């Protein structure tokens, strides 16, 4: 077998693998329970499967799912930009900036998201008009009733973005802190400004640490959009709810909505993996640019 080390032949490990009978027993038991549960749902007379099939691809449901995607994407983009700003402010030497960032984070993490959503929905009651002008004069540049400027969609988007930014700020801050101090020193010694160092040297490296928890946050956000039902944004859950309040098929429409949430979250995994590879270059992440360079080198030869 091993010609290189003939004298060591009898030291080679030829052992009977350790058996794990209980794993098989547990797996079979689990499969049975799961099958029984699924069967109980499928055979349940109380659930009308035709209604599920009828609404699974209903245009209103699909529009709702589309709006959920739009809300998730838009609020995550706004939140990430705001979070990066807050994280940099919190790490700033400027006390005022630190206080603002800390206050922001404490405020938006310290109150329930549902409360914040309702608050933005009621903004028109607190401020009936939104007016921009020159203070202490009669000059107005912009004056509109709040309800026309801030639709329920806008209110929902603001609520989700501002809340998420507070959580994401801490993630971004942890990412920035994970980058070795020597990187900033090297950048400084080359004459790079603070902003340039942050954009080109620190943040690209911080992304490696930021991305996995931000993937979590995105999944969480996708589901949190359902809270916008309270301000009547016609996203997936609200739409399913509206339909079921008319045809009284509550459970069936929950199944429909749940199906689409599950599908969307599964699809979210792909861009996450792509981004993790993209920012893993140089760090020996499987599939990242580093392994690709090695391959290119071999091909060049």
């Amino acid at each position: 077998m091993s010609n290189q080390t003939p004298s060591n032949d009898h030291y080679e490990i030829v052992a009977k693998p350790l058996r794990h009978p209980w794993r098989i027993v547990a797996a079979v038991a689990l499969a049975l329970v799961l099958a029984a549960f699924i069967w109980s749902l499928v055979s349940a007379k109380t659930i009308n499967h035709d209604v599920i099939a009828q609404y699974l691809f209903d245009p209103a449901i699909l529009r709702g799912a589309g709006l959920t995607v739009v809300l998730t994407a838009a609020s995550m983009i706004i939140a990430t930009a705001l979070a990066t700003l807050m994280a940099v402010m919190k790490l700033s030497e400027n006390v005022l900036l630190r206080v603002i960032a800390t206050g922001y984070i404490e405020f938006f993490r310290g109150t329930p998201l549902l409360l914040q959503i309702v608050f933005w929905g009621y903004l028109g009651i607190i401020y009936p008009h939104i007016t921009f002008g020159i203070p202490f004069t009669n000059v107005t540049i912009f004056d509109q009733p709040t309800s026309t400027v801030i639709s329920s969609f806008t209110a929902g988007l603001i609520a989700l973005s501002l809340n998420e930014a507070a959580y994401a700020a801490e993630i971004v801050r942890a990412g920035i802190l994970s980058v070795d101090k020597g990187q900033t020193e090297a950048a400084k010694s080359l004459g790079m400004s603070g902003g340039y160092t942050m954009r080109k040297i620190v943040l690209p490296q911080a992304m490696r640490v930021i991305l996995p928890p931000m993937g979590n946050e995105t999944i969480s956000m996708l589901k949190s959009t359902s809270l916008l039902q309270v301000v009547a944004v016609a996203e997936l859950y609200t739409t399913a709810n509206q339909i079921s309040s008319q045809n009284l098929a509550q459970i069936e429409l929950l199944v429909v909505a749940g199906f689409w949430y599950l599908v969307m979250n599964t699809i979210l995994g792909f861009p996450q993996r792509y981004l993790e590879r993209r920012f893993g270059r140089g760090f020996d992440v499987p599939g990242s640019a580093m392994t690709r360079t090695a391959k290119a080198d071999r091909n060049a030869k």
Partner: protein
Amino acid sequence: MVRALGVRKSYGKNEVLKSISLEVKQGEVLCLLGPSGSGKSTFLRCLNHLETIDAGRIYVGEHLIGYRQVGDVLHELHPNEIALQRRGIGMVFQRFNLFPHLTALENVIEAPIGVAGLDKAAATARGKALLEKVGLADRAYHYPSQLSGGQQQRVAIARALAMEPAVMLFDEPTSALDPELVGDVLDVMRDLAKTGMTMIVVTHEIGFAREVSDTVVFMDQGLVVEAGAPADVLDNPQHERTKAFLRSVL
């Protein structure tokens, strides 16, 4: 080229630099020796304002580092002005500090493009020439994690040179290297010295100091104990502390 006058620096009550004065002329190589904790690395980091000083003045070329003097009054410089001063001062670190998310070539051309405003083609041409100079032309598209320590340090030297500095600072450039890789890095530094680069080198490589430097400065406990030509300081030290140190490293 580089003048330090009475430089002092404390961390809290611990005074790490107790009035350091020295001068390096254009094209000279100065080696700073001394036991760890003697303040030599701290002093080097003061020269490009990575550390602030408590007293004294540091001039690199015509520039007073970190401040503007108007009459008797010192004004702190804006970070952008300090960044401008640092462009003329290359630095090589003990732990290389290459940017791990960039290839060797990208490491070298990042600052010339982003800071000095060179166009990409010109920066790339210069970057490749520099990598060739340090013997790494075939490693241009490798990431730092694919390079050995010695190779990384040579890329770091090329990166610093890409900004065409007037003076190069080396902070124990071979201390983090495996013994067999030290030679390659010292060769590059030796060649650099021959081209007339002004260099200040914190090192434990006595052989390199003897061969390459014009001046050797021995520091201990934040003070310059002895300074002079390598033949004097290394082969005929006058102070007991210098003698003891040289006995321990040789």
